[in-house]
């Protein structure tokens, strides 16, 4: 009995020893920074000078800052186009590539490849595709008699253009949908077939409801990603002309945060911006969770 408790104590200690790197990392790179960033958001500070306590000053300033609202609008416009588009295309590809026919695994690989390409490379390629004069897209649009817009150079089209490009990296979404499809027992489809359901009915009443937990997961993760979009916007705005170009039309929220933090070194203000973003993501996730029982179907219920 005594030996047992010594062993248990030893295992206890070893457990902590094994996770020690993570515990240190958690304190230094996660918990510490979170606390410090709350503290910082109540200060005016430019790294090089002294910290000045200004209470809610940053937050007050933020709510009267037109660029804050503008960048939020830009980011949500992007998310509203990008997230549903990626989910729908991901689902369609998964449905197409689900049947185990010869060659589907090759297509799965091909559709996944763009997701592993460094985003700077992807963005560079797409700046060319979207180029109004020499680009591939307007070349093809012209062939079918459409006069393409200026895409990345147009204040109207720059955000949709970056959002459409998101389909290029549909790979992970597709793979997770495929995994979701593989989880659905074949008997359901067979039974529905016997009952005379056609493909659309089976899709509508069996596949989609059974995939809803997967959709739920993907919706949340893709939305979180979309609200944190940075690199594409930074690189592609105005066809690579620079920050938020043209005329701040591509000033995404995280771009604005970067500008405040790293162009002006307003670390306090940037921290306040990061907290608002965190809050928005948190509240949205909560809302999605709360409403999920209306549209997410779990097999046991």
């Amino acid at each position: 009995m005594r030996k047992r408790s010594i062993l248990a104590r030893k295992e206890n200690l070893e457990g902590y020893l094994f996770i020690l790197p993570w515990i240190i990392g958690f304190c230094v790179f996660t918990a510490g920074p979170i606390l410090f960033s709350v503290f910082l958001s109540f200060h005016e500070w430019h790294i090089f000078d002294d910290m000045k306590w200004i209470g809610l000053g940053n937050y007050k300033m933020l709510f009267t800052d037109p660029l804050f609202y503008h960048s939020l609008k830009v980011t949500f416009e992007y998310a509203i186009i990008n997230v549903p588009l990626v989910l729908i295309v991901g689902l369609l590809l998964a449905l197409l590539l689900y049947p185990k026919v010869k060659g589907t695994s090759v297509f799965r690989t091909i559709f996944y490849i763009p997701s592993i390409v460094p985003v700077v490379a992807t963005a560079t390629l797409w700046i060319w595709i979207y180029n109004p004069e020499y680009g591939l897209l307007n070349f093809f649009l012209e062939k079918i008699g459409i006069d393409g817009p200026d895409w990345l150079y147009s204040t109207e089209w720059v955000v949709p253009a970056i959002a459409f490009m998101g389909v290029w990296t549909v790979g992970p979404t597709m793979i997770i949908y495929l995994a979701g499809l593989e989880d659905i027992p074949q008997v359901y489809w067979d039974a529905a077939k016997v009952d005379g359901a056609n493909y659309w009915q089976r899709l509508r009443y069996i596949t989609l409801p059974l995939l809803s937990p997967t959709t739920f997961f993907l919706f949340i993760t893709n939305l979180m990603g979309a609200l944190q979009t940075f690199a594409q916007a930074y690189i592609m705005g105005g066809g690579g002309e620079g920050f938020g170009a043209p005329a701040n039309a591509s000033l995404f929220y995280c771009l604005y945060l970067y500008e405040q933090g790293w162009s002006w070194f307003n670390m306090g203000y940037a921290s306040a911006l990061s907290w608002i973003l965190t809050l928005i993501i948190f509240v949205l996730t909560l809302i999605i969770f709360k409403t999920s029982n209306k549209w997410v179907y779990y097999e046991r219920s």
Partner: protein
Amino acid sequence: MFPKKLNFDNYKRVLELFPWLTFLKNSAIITFLSTVGIVFSSSLAAFAFATLRFKARDKLFLLVISTMMIPYYTTLIPQYILFSKIGWIDTLKPLWVPAFFGSAYFIFLLRQFFKSIPRELFEAAKIDGCNTFQIFYKIYFPLAKPAIITVIILQFIAAWGDFFGPLIYLQSEEKYTLVLGLNAFRGMYYTSWHYLMAATCMVTIPSLIVFLIGQKRIIGGITITGMKS
């Protein structure tokens, strides 16, 4: 519209125009060290969470999972300030040292795998006189090879293609990674599409090779994270 003949001179010219080899060296250092760090720290923690019994284990694991939900930008500014206070700005260190302190995502991925290894192996090794660390590196680590390879590939691709980290931490050109180099190159030669595409290919090819070697494992790894447990 379309080019007429195949021509490798573009690559030669691009290599002459920019110090790509320096960028390659920096990218390689960051990618290699961060991958080593991630594998080491995450597998240790994952092993403990999967097999050892210690106080508050499940609560701590829940904490690991919940850190995956924290947006990148929440902790970014204090981390930047921390690194600037210890003089690490414009060095490669901020881009690989944190990897030695584990990643929630990979701890989760590896823990799921370690859990599938029968507990009897652990007990048997213990009776044979192995200590816990030996059980880890002689039995669990080799058995988890497929999962470890997944982690290596995913981390390689993430570190290789990272843009934001190098953008804020690296300033002088001799510290640039390939990705930053490509971005700077794009800024200078934005009308020379042939050079730009050649440079883009150079930056992309290593990721592509790593992906093609381990594509089955990546897809398996992505699937695990989408699982409802």
